[in-house]
C-alpha cells in the first residue's frame, strides 16, 4: 500500500471540526441523499442475514425474528401512555412507527365497523403502506411474508400488548408491492 494512498485516507478522515461532548446533533448528518449508499448497504446486509437465517434455521427463523420484533415492540412502547382502548393504542402505535412504517385502519365495504367480529374472533384490518421491511425484501429480491415480516409482526404485537395490556396476534392476509393487508386479532 503506497504512502500516498494512506495520506489520502488520513486527509479524508481529518477535519477542523471541534466536537464537544455536550454538542447534540440537531440534524440528520449527512443529508439523506448522501445516506443512500448506507441505506442500501443496511438493506443488503439485513436481507443476507435473513436469507442465511432461513437457510440454517428453516422454519425456526420465523420464531427468532418474531421474538426479536416483539422484544423491540415492548421496549419502545413501554415509554408510551398506557390505554385500554384499541383505537387509542393504534394511534399511539402509529406515532411509534412513524418514519419506518405507516398504516391505516381499514375495512371492506360490506363491514360497518372497523372492529370486526367473525367466526368467534375479534379483529381489525390494518393496511401497511410504507414499510422498511418491504423495502428491504424488494431490494434483495426476497419473498414477502417470510422471517423479516415476522419482525414487524412481533413489533406490532409487542407494542399493542405493552400499551393495552391485551394479548394480540397479527396475521398476513395479503402482501403487495405497494401495501400489505394485515389482520390484528385481539384476544
Amino acid at each position, binding site marked *: 500500500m503506497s504512502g500516498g494512498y494512506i495520506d489520502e485516507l488520513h486527509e479524508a478522515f481529518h477535519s477542523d471540526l471541534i466536537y464537544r461532548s455536550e454538542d447534540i446533533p440537531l440534524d440528520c448528518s449527512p443529508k439523506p441523499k448522501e445516506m443512500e449508499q448506507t441505506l442500501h448497504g443496511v438493506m443488503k446486509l439485513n436481507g443476507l442475514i435473513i436469507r442465511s437465517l432461513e437457510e440454517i434455521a428453516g422454519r425456526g427463523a420465523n420464531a427468532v425474528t418474531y421474538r426479536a420484533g416483539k422484544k423491540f415492540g415492548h421496549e419502545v412502547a413501554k415509554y408510551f401512555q398506557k390505554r385500554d382502548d384499541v383505537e387509542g393504542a393504534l394511534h399511539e402505535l402509529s406515532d411509534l412507527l412513524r418514519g419506518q412504517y405507516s398504516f391505516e385502519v381499514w375495512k371492506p365495504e360490506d363491514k360497518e365497523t372497523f372492529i370486526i367480529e367473525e367466526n368467534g374472533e375479534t379483529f381489525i384490518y390494518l393496511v401497511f403502506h*410504507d414499510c422498511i421491511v418491504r423495502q428491504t425484501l424488494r431490494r434483495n429480491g426476497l419473498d414477502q411474508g417470510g422471517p423479516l415480516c415476522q419482525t414487524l409482526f412481533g413489533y406490532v404485537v409487542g407494542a399493542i400488548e405493552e400499551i393495552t395490556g391485551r394479548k394480540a396476534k397479527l396475521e398476513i392476509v395479503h402482501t*403487495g408491492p405497494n*401495501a400489505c*393487508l394485515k389482520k390484528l386479532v385481539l384476544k
Partner: protein
Amino acid sequence: MDIHVDKDACVGCGLCVKDCPMHVYELQNNVSVAVRPNNCMGCLSCHEICPAQALEHRGIYAARRHYIDIKVCEMLRKVV
C-alpha cells in the same frame, strides 16, 4: 378508489381476479372489470401480475420506494 381497465389491452387471463384478496375484479366477457373498487386497499399486486399492463389506479397512496437505486435510475434514463 378509481380503477380503470384498458379493455383493448386486457387479455382476459384472470390473474387479477385470482390474486386480489378483496375480490375487486370479475371477468365479464373475457375482460377484467373492477366490480368492487371500494374494496381496493391499494396493494397494487394486480399491477405487478397483469401481463398486459392494462390496469390503472387513481387516487392511490404511493408507498415510499427506498429500494430504487437512484444511480441505476439515472443510468436508465440516459438509455430509455
